[in-house]
């Protein structure tokens, strides 16, 4: 398998006493959307900066396109797009000029500018100065700048940070689209699993500078096939007995709360529909153990 990004036992520290990254080995396969997850301060941004060469790596343990990164800077950026310090923009310039700036540097035909602005839905605002943009627009502009030269590899640091739900969905769609259509490998960081879980093919989880988990999204979903839920409803004792026939581990927690296992999270809607039809008066259904809980546990330790 070809890894487009690879680090082998990457260590990094700003000062002697405090290690920021400890023995970090990540492997990003070509063509994947790799979600790089971790809470704030885990070392995500530092990793991003190292991977993009902004911070020089003295130990030579970073490989992009299977070659050490040091030797490829800066020409490698002809096929790499990056949105690192989000959003890195020139606020005194218009949205159009910001993209034009990148177009000049990357020697992309200026006709591409409108295309990419259309893609992130900023065409109507392209003459406005970037300082008048909302946070979401700035974010989208920065993505447009990263996408402009149709890179083979895209680094996105918290790209959906500060976007409204619609915006998040649209960015997600966009990323999936360019990944599918153009085969762009995307390395995207986030501190919220839910934000990117739906689009990633691969996941790496970092906490306090060490990699806690790395694998495909499929492996991860398989790991969480059973799903423990808690239901709050009237007449819990009766329902406990009824449900015990069909489902495993049905327990009465409190007067009106039942916990039980479903085989998968995706069963919840159907399950809910069914018991409502059967006359249950439900106040709340809550997942007790799922991907999110697992992620929280992993990173809190």
């Amino acid at each position, binding site marked *: 398998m070809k890894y487009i990004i690879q680090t082998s036992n990457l260590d990094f520290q700003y000062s002697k006493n405090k290690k920021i990254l400890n023995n970090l080995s990540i492997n990003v396969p070509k063509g994947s959307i790799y979600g790089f997850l971790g809470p704030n301060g885990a070392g995500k941004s530092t990793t991003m*900066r190292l991977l*993009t060469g*902004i911070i*020089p790596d*003295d130990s030579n343990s970073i490989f992009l396109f299977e070659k050490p990164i040091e030797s490829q800077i*800066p020409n490698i950026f002809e096929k790499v797009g990056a949105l*690192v310090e989000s959003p*890195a923009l020139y606020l005194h*310039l218009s949205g159009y000029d910001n993209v034009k700036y990148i177009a000049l540097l990357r020697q992309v035909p200026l006709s591409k500018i409108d295309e990419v602005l259309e893609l992130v839905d900023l065409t109507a605002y392209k003459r406005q100065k970037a300082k008048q943009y909302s946070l979401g627009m700035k974010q989208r502009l920065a993505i447009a700048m990263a996408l402009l030269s149709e890179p083979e590899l895209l680094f996105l640091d918290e790209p959906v940070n500060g976007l409204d739900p619609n915006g998040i969905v649209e960015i997600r769609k966009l990323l999936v689209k360019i990944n599918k259509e153009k085969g762009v490998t995307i390395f995207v960081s986030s501190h919220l699993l839910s934000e990117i879980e739906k689009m990633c093919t691969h996941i790496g989880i970092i906490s306090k500078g060490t990699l806690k988990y790395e694998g495909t999204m499929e492996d991860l979903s398989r790991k969480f096939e059973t799903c423990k839920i808690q239901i709050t409803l009237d007449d819990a004792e009766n329902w406990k007995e009824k449900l015990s026939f069909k489902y495993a581990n049905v327990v009465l927690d409190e007067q009106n709360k039942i916990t039980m296992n479903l085989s998968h999270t995706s069963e919840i809607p159907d399950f809910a529909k069914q018991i409502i039809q059967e006359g249950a008066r439900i106040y709340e259904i809550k997942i007790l153990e799922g991907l999110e809980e697992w992620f929280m546990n992993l990173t809190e330790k």
Partner: protein
Amino acid sequence: MKQYISNLLIALKAEHLKKKGTGIYYTSIIIGALSPILYFFFQIASDDKVEAGMPYNYYTTFIHDVITPFAYFLFPMIIIIHASKMAQLDHKNGGWQLMETQPLQKFSIYFSKYIVLLISNLLSIISLFGFSILCAFVLKNTIEIPETTNFSIEFYNLSNLFVRTFVASLFVTALQYFLSVLISSFIWSLLIGFFSLLATSFLTSFNLIPDWYPYGILNKISDYKEGSDIGNYLLYTEVIGLVLSIFILTAGFYWYKNKNFIRAFVKPYSKIIISTSFTLLFVVIGYFILIPKQYEPLETTILCGKIESLSKFKNGYLIHPTISDTIASFKIINNEFKLKTDKPIPLDKYKIIVDNSFPVGVIMASKDSIYVSIKYFNNEVTTKFTGTRLAENQYKLDKNFDWSYVSYCLEQNELIDKPNDFFDELYKEWNKRYKKANSFKTRDNFIPKKDFINREMKLVCIEYLNYLNSYLDKRKAMFPKDETILSKNILEIKSKIKLDDESLISNESYLEYLKHELCKNDSRDIDSKLKEIENITKLKSSNFKNRLLYSNLKTNLEEASSSLERNELISNYSNFITDEKLKENLINQFKIYERLGKGNEARTIQTKDLNGNLVEISKFKGKFVAIDVWATWCGPCKYESPYFEKMAIKYKNENIVFLGLSSDQDAKKWYLDAKNKSKSVTHLRLENPELFSSDYNVNSIPRFILIDSEGKIYNSNMPRPSDSAFEIIIRKALGLKELE
């Protein structure tokens, strides 16, 4: 290489897009235009009449006038601001990281911004020159300009000034840019920049600015607008600026590239060797640029030069400062001259006299080769010296006047009761001046030779010893009973000056000091002049004594009021001079004074009148003749002539004529001037001014002579008519009643 350049060009193009709306280029142009435009309006508003003086180039002078505020303040200020602005564009919102994730060499990133700064510098200078020429052109038609002014555009001079200004800006731009990139907060680079800029003028007055001080290099543009004395394209300060800008750019680039100092220059340790040897290389280059230069002595003594003037000159003389002896004479051909001599010439300030028209002072000694370029227009003289005494001949010009607390104390009679305090102050001030004597450098980094500096240092000592002496005199008068003990410091100063230093004998202050020292134990109550002479004669026979006695007797002869007095001086003291030549010289002087004494035959004077007819002064025999010797170029003469005319009008009915005798070479100029003067004075122009000045011992003008009705000298050196004594003498000669 080609790749580097194309990459740099891409970055440069992108920088230009990025700086859109920041107005960097516009402000550069405005800053450049500011001083010409302000100066333009100032000129229009001012009513000052321009005196016809030395001819000058109109455009060059205009630019020279406006470049001072530009080079001193406006230009460095805008450099500091723009350097900070260019770096801030990317310090805000992570621009540096954005650029670093583009296919751009770090080299291109760092230098594209520097190039933008250089372009903005260039625009500023172009704007200054462009607006100057434009404003000057418009101004030309609105103000009065002397007709001798040259209106061509001196391309070489101006382009040289242009290039020098640009080169001088490189270092400060590189440094400010380096600081601005290094420190992400804009306030620090601005603060450091402005503070250092203000410190320049402040520290200059304390003589604390090294030649490589980045914020001072531009000042030199304004200080030395004409550029190098010796024909270099750049001044050494500009060369050092250029070299150091390369150093700071390289260092700044590697620092930026590697993000911190240690990674850039120290680790891995092999880098230490590179960075140290690189620094060392620049230290060595800098050392060779900054080390002051001195001329080596030659085999013979050469003095040559050129006179730019409308008149043609024939003869020149090199004159000794004290004895007024002609050391050498030379022919002037096509207003150029060359004098070569093997005579021993001790270091001193000599005079070159050109056709008895004007003197030019020159500091020189044996084995010097000196070229002097003289401009003589409208009776103004400017000189420029090059050659082995380049620095010496500029030395005094550059010395800015220091306020002296010691002389203030003497004037105000302060500290007379506290000798120790006074001595401390005196020593402190002396010490400062003594050290400063050695600090002079020319714009091309030449320093005076050792002999000259030693002499200058001695002169500083003498100045302060004279202060000391006048202090001691005052103290003696005010506290006759108190004894004053000189402190150790003061004795140290005294020990530096010998009482028989021949090299200083031409110096007035030294003579003053000497006389005071010679007479201080002589308490006889006689004429102080005689006391001085007597004490000199008591010295051991030496060349020094001869010279000293000679100059003293000569002054006394000149100041003597009667033939009796002169005769006594000569008969009593002239034999103490053992140098025959000096003695002969003195006797000659004596004879001239005697010949010009009252009652001697006045030698004839040949002149021409306004119509060009020959006139002999003897023609006026039977009447008293009052003569005013003047020339159109002589300022003090112009001051005296109305007083002279007033006398002529007042006494026009008496038995006296008033003559205005001009020594002008240029008959036309004289004619125009004389025509406009009062008719009560008869105007004549000397046929042979040289003969006249030797006949009547005229060394300077204005000079007033009174000849009696029998053609005999009545007074060969009258007081000036602005002095009431002039009229008293006239009345006495005419036998009129004394004025009440």
